[in-house]
């Protein structure tokens, strides 16, 4: 079913958008590759939805240009651009049946009735709505409405599908089912998907690339692993998941990596980044830290004291404090938590391949 040749390639060049004195987007440049699954990730008000609306043609940029397959489409209105779009809240036509909703873009394009019937039928089958053809959107569950919205946006084989926080109204289990569904539709259609969300785990799970927005600026673009493990800034590091920040001093590079002093102990970082200078912040994902009564050899180790614990079901979240007073949290097995809470000090260990340095003062 894959038709990669139909997928569109988009390019934004220096796009800015102001609403009155508010700068919603600030000089944004981004290439969206043919057939990729790009997620625009950021907190609310970061400009990600504004950028999606500009891609769809519902908003026009205050300055900058937009290209679709190499052609300047900055001034092209939404109805001519005809990107498939799935809205937050689905925006189905409430007075039309499932079938009629899905047929709408084909009717607009004046396709022959027989073709409409086959394509709508195939789409209904693909999204698993057989038997619901004659129902009105109000008679469907949230997940089913979501499927109608997806079918309606994909039935005319658009070059790009834009999704604006499509799962925000769904409960957690339905959400992951729909995520899998969207991922499958992306693979099957081969269309370029641009997906807006403020949920970092959703972004990491779905996309081939993630673009992180903050205050109208594009901070970083990269594949999920890159942005999670090598964030370019503190904001990206903290937004993508829990992270511990430890102040370090005496940072310098040697033949194998970066060395520094953390909490009065020397540490080695094989992938610490190219930061050099006296003061920096060491960023450590909690899942890379292990807690033990003795330092582990071959690991970086510092001591800390447990100050509290939260039961999370599968693990316990342990709150710790280093001797210098920096706070950390680590998810550990329940027994380890009990052990740590019962002793004066424990060792925190992490492999030398993990952890990276970010500029700036410590906590």
């Amino acid at each position, binding site marked *: 079913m894959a038709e990669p040749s139909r997928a569109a390639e988009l390019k934004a060049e220096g796009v800015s958008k102001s609403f009155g004195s508010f700068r919603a987007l600030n000089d944004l440049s981004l290439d969206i590759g043919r057939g990729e699954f790009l997620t625009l990730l950021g907190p609310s008000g970061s400009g990600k939805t504004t950028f999606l609306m500009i891609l*769809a*043609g*519902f908003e026009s940029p205050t300055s900058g240009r937009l290209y679709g397959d190499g052609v300047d489409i900055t001034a092209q*209105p*939404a*109805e*001519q651009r*005809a*990107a*498939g*779009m799935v*809205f*937050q*809240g689905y*925006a*189905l*036509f*409430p*007075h039309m049946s499932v079938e009629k909703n899905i047929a*709408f*873009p084909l009717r*607009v*394009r004046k396709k022959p009735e027989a073709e409409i019937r086959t394509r709508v039928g195939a789409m209904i089958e693909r999204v698993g709505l057989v038997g619901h053809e004659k129902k009105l959107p109000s008679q469907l569950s949230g997940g089913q409405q979501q499927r109608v919205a997806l079918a*309606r*946006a994909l039935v*005319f084989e658009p070059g790009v599908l834009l999704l604006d926080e499509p799962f925000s109204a769904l409960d957690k289990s339905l959400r992951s089912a729909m995520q899998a569904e969207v991922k499958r539709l992306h693979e099957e259609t081969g269309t370029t998907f641009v997906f807006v969300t403020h949920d970092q785990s959703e972004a990491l799970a779905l996309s081939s690339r993630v673009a992180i927005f903050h205050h109208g600026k594009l901070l970083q673009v990269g594949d999920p692993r890159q942005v999670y493990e090598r964030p370019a800034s503190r904001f990206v590091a903290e937004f993508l998941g829990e992270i511990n920040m430890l102040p370090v001093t005496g940072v310098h590079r040697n033949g194998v990596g970066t060395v520094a002093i953390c909490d009065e102990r020397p540490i080695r970082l094989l992938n610490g980044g190219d930061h050099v200078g006296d003061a920096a912040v060491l960023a450590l994902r909690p899942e890379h830290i292990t807690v033990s009564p003795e330092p582990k050899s071959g690991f970086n180790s510092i001591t800390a004291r447990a100050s509290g614990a939260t039961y999370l079901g599968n693990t316990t979240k342990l709150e710790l404090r280093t001797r210098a007073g920096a706070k950390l949290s680590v998810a550990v097995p329940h027994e380890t938590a009990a052990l740590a809470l019962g002793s004066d000090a424990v060792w925190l260990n992490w492999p030398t391949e993990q952890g990276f340095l970010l500029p700036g003062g410590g906590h």
Partner: protein
Amino acid sequence: MQTLSNRTGAALFLAPLLLFLSLAYVVPFLGVAGWSVTLPEPGIGQYSVLLSDPLVQSVFIRTFRICAIVTLASVTCAYAIAFLWVRGTPLQRRITEFCILVPFWISVLTRAFGWVALLSNRGLINTWLQSLGFISEPLALVRNEFGVIVGMTHFLIPFAVFPLASAMRNLDERVLLAARGLGASRTRIFWTVFVPMTMSGIIGAALIVFVFALGFFVTPAILGGGRSVMVAELVYVRLFQSPDWGLAAAISVVLVLIVGALMALLFRTLKPAQMV
């Protein structure tokens, strides 16, 4: 929306109004209903007259015809006005709002005579058309059904605007965006998405206008010039000019029943809150 105690409070405040309405309307109406089966003699004779008298029937048919045309004309005009009011630029909205509110400050009588001044043989429109040479004889614009329809439509448009504007305001903007994104032209979106999605407002507005129009008295009396009599005027004539109180009462009862049925339909279509 409202808490229960709020509701009880509201009920307490509304009680005197309810009492007043029942004393001022329900009790007298029961009296009228009594006349319809007792005057001039006991029995349902007046209702059979109502069903067989060609004059009464022609008045009812004319009333329904006028009301239907007025409803169509008012709702169509009101739709355009409501559209401008809800979806226009801020300036357009302000002007529209003003134009909707001003007529409420002018009495129905004044407005009817205003239309006479405009539409009569020596009125503004005929004088202009004659002096510009478009017509040699004045057009019959008033003292006929046309005049009645113009006057009533003008009076009823604002009442149709409110339910329509409310329906348009409640419409989810993203649905219209979705239609655009799927490639539909503005005309197509208007007819296949916007109008169907405001259908409850259209039905509500039509029912409100129709119900109001059924009982119109002043406007048809002045602009119809006694030639296109509607039901309310017929009741008046049967009461005060050729007294037949029993028949007048029977006509009133039938009119109230029709209005009641339409109101029931209205409340099924629209929530009362949507009408303001």
